[in-house]
């Protein structure tokens, strides 16, 4: 049997972290009472007009720069038409013709064969980033045969990041999305929490034989976590291979991932061939961005966005942070990868290092083996850790000063984990875990034991 090459591309919608929506002043907030964050424009009241939110543009520029894109100094807005209850205007304002950023790349790391020690770096090309409106939410109440529409989310700013089909499997896709998530969170341009719908991923999957053209692709939607992303993609790849090997064909369709069954199913709701009748958005002039060179002298800086200014103020991206951690603390790349992969763990590590004499190379073991496994076991985030960096540093200092053994330290940590409010030293004293250092005292004890033996 000829080998199959799976091809995976991604369309990722990241909700922009901003106080107000993309084209109106209503607030952006998760889980607010239904229809409490809806402006006249969001409700599509006749006569209302879109006004572009500066912060959203800045978020998109930051993201574009972080993904090595070319920022288009002139980009355009378009209307994408379709009828749906959660789309009040009957069209979405998006950027179809000329998006704000194009031609970038994202590097991400994977472990080969699940061994943390063997990491490989891959790259996926970013086709473009476009600004567009989010839709509202519709809830289908089948018992009463009605649909309930909540427009709180309608009009919230989105960045759609399109990743070229450079990935080959679920693992790669998940790793790429994870890295994007970290980048967005570092920039602050999106909180990118998948569970809260701030990061939504659609996968485009196809398979073909080497040397042959790409196969028909399907779009997989309704994926709510990184884990499900990998699962959905791998399932779909398998499904397509089986279908083709059995002499069937792949339909260019949209499929939903059913997380309970672990498979993809055709989506009845979304029609396959929709003509969106794209048209330029006439109420928004072209979006013009400047850089240091093109910025006119007498321009009011409040009115313009300077790409170079934003570039200069970009924070260290995860890849840079990882390198710095390796350099600064002499830890391994795999270590810094894990540190950054857990929200808050890198900060925790650095905080402990500051407060202890123990070498970072040793501290890292405690962080990654002990602390992290406790957190995972109890499904806690670093923020929720009952053991603070202060407490851990305190404990490690005792170990470093050889006042306790490492076995004892593990026991103390277990106790600390219960969060009873005791300090490491208190626990050590309580459980008599001190290491004796005094030579004389040791001799006395040994002598006492020997004496005790002799008496029998």
């Amino acid at each position, binding site marked *: 049997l000829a080998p199959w090459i799976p091809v995976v591309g991604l369309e990722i919608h990241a909700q922009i972290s901003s106080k107000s929506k993309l084209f109106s002043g209503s607030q952006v907030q998760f889980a607010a009472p239904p229809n409490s964050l809806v402006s*006249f424009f969001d*409700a*599509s*009241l*006749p*006569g*209302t*007009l*879109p*006004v*572009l939110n500066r912060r959203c543009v800045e978020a998109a520029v930051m993201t574009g720069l972080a993904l090595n894109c070319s920022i288009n100094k002139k980009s355009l807005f378009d*209307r994408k*038409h379709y*009828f749906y*209850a959660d789309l*009040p*205007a*009957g*069209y979405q304002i998006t950027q179809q013709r000329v998006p704000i950023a194009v031609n970038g790349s994202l590097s991400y790391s994977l472990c080969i064969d699940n061994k943390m020690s063997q990491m490989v770096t891959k790259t996926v090309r970013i086709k473009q980033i476009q600004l567009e409106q989010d839709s509202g939410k519709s809830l289908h109440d089948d018992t009463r*045969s009605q*649909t309930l*529409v909540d427009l709180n989310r309608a009009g919230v700013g989105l960045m759609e990041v399109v990743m070229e089909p450079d990935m080959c499997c679920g693992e790669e896709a998940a790793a790429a999305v994870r890295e994007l998530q970290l980048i967005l969170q570092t920039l602050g341009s999106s909180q990118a929490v998948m569970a809260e719908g701030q990061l939504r991923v659609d996968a485009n999957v196809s398979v073909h034989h080497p040397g042959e053209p790409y196969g028909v692709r399907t779009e997989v939607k309704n994926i709510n976590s990184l884990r499900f992303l990998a699962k959905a993609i791998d399932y779909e790849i398998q499904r397509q291979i089986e279908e083709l090997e059995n002499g069937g064909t792949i339909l260019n369709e949209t499929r939903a991932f059913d997380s309970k069954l672990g498979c993809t199913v055709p989506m009845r709701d979304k029609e396959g061939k929709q*003509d969106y*009748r*794209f*048209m330029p958005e*006439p*109420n*928004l*002039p072209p979006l013009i961005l400047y850089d240091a060179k093109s910025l006119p002298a007498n321009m009011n800086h409040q*009115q313009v966005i300077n790409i170079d200014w934003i570039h200069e103020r970009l924070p260290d991206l995860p890849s840079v942070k990882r390198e710095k951690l390796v350099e600064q603390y002499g830890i391994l790349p795999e270590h810094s990868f894990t540190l950054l992969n857990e929200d808050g763990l890198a900060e925790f590590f650095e905080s402990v290092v500051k407060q202890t004499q123990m070498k970072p190379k040793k501290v890292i073991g405690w962080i990654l083996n002990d602390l992290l496994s406790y957190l995972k076991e109890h499904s806690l985030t670093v923020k929720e850790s009952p053991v603070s960096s202060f407490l851990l540093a305190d404990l490690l200092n005792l170990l470093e000063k050889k006042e306790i053994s490492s076995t004892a330290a593990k026991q103390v940590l277990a106790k600390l984990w219960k969060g009873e409010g005791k300090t490491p030293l208190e626990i050590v004293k309580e459980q008599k875990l001190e290491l004796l250092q005094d030579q004389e005292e040791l001799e006395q004890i040994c002598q006492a034991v020997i004496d005790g033996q002799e008496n029998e």
Partner: protein
Amino acid sequence: AVLKDGLRSQVSAALKEGQVTPTELCQRCLALIKSTKFLNAYITVAEETALKQAEESEERYKRGQPLGILDGIPIAVKDNFNTAGIETTCASNMLKGYISPYNATVVQKLLDQGAVLLGKTNLDEFAMGSGSTDGVFGPVRNPWSYSKQYKEKSVPKSHSEDEESNWVITGGSSGGSAAAVSSFTCFAALGSDTGGSTRNPAAHCGVVGLKPTYGLISRHGLIPLVNSMDVPGILTRCVDDAAVLLGSLAGHDPKDSTTIQDDFKPFELPNLTDVSKLSIGIPKEYHAPGLSSEILALWSKAANLFKNAGAKVVEVSLPHTPYSIVCYHVLCTAEVASNMARFDGLEYGHRSDKKDSTESMYAATRREGFNDVVRGRILSGNYFLLKQNYEKYFVKAQKVRRLIANDFVKVFRSGVDILLTPTTLSDAAPYTEFIQEDNRTRSAQNDILTQAANMAGLPAISVPTALSERGLPVGLQFIGRSFQEKQLLTVAKWFEKQVQFPMIQLEEVKRHDNGVFQHQKSASFS
């Protein structure tokens, strides 16, 4: 004859000096609206709120603190502008009963300056039409149908025939506003202009109709027809008044991203006496097929008027003019299809009782809510926007639009200051004749002289010039350079002074207007 007075010159002064009070003025206008109800110019008369506004204005005048020249002045607003608390229908079943929660920016500006909002005027449904005959509240009648001037000239075909079947249309789509101003029920009215919808009815009703430069006046709150061409229009009885309204409305609006950022300075119009430095262009393509010989003659006469006064009058060419109708048709219907997509009955407006599914509810709502004209344009527009048609029609039309706009740029660059053209092909048609052809045909015929200015975004004004042989008004149009309204209006004012267009003689008005002031001059032009 207070109701017939110009704003700046007379009424404002009268209010200031207490010769007439805002409440008196308001009451007279309201009474006149009642007695001219047969014109069907108003959809909603906001009697209570208007009187309240008038009272508040009166208080301000008593304290010697009027807000400005518009304080206490009764105005009317076309029913496609949002007015908070007052029904906004667009003359459509889709919005019958719709009470908007916000004021359009232009409405807010007028109210902030103390104007008294008498009511919302009638129009073609969603501003689609050139007759003001296709709204759900019925057609608007041209006040001149009932004028002495028209009645004298009309020959009844039989004894039984009366005014009822002889009345003429106002033109459109801002016919209600034009009729309201023409019949003295208000001092100024807002219209909208997308292809000529302010200038056309202005010409037919013998009033001044100003289309400002695109981007000068905010469209926030104006329910759109074609976003890239719509402008709020100003209808008044004299050019000076149009300048006053323009001054109070123009300027950047952060809520409308298509308004220009530059500061706008309101201006008073100088009394131009010397036109020798002026260059007037006569575009030959505006000698359009169907142009009545009467209007052609008036146009020539006007050109000669300028020439004899020392201006340079030159024939110019705007070669792409003949393409503007089809170009407009494509671009207008495409934007209409898009703009009307929001009317689904879900958030506001008419919602059908059909509940089988969301789709069937949408379809029924839109079928029930929109008239044939609107639905026809939506279907055409969606056709042009289909992927396979987009390049062929929409993009092509955009390119043609650019050529049309460039025609004007070239002509203005060659030294011409203002263009002089007819506004309409003929005087107002009788309603029975007008409805012989469908809306689309009529629009294509009647927009021909006004629409290119919308394509190019240029300012244009129709000035009442003379009465036709049938005793009906004929207007001529001036088109100016972008944002050069001051020059445009200055020339228009000079022309207005030269032609001395006669005042309409309406029985109803005589009965209601027994003020202190003299009649205006009445020597006519033709």
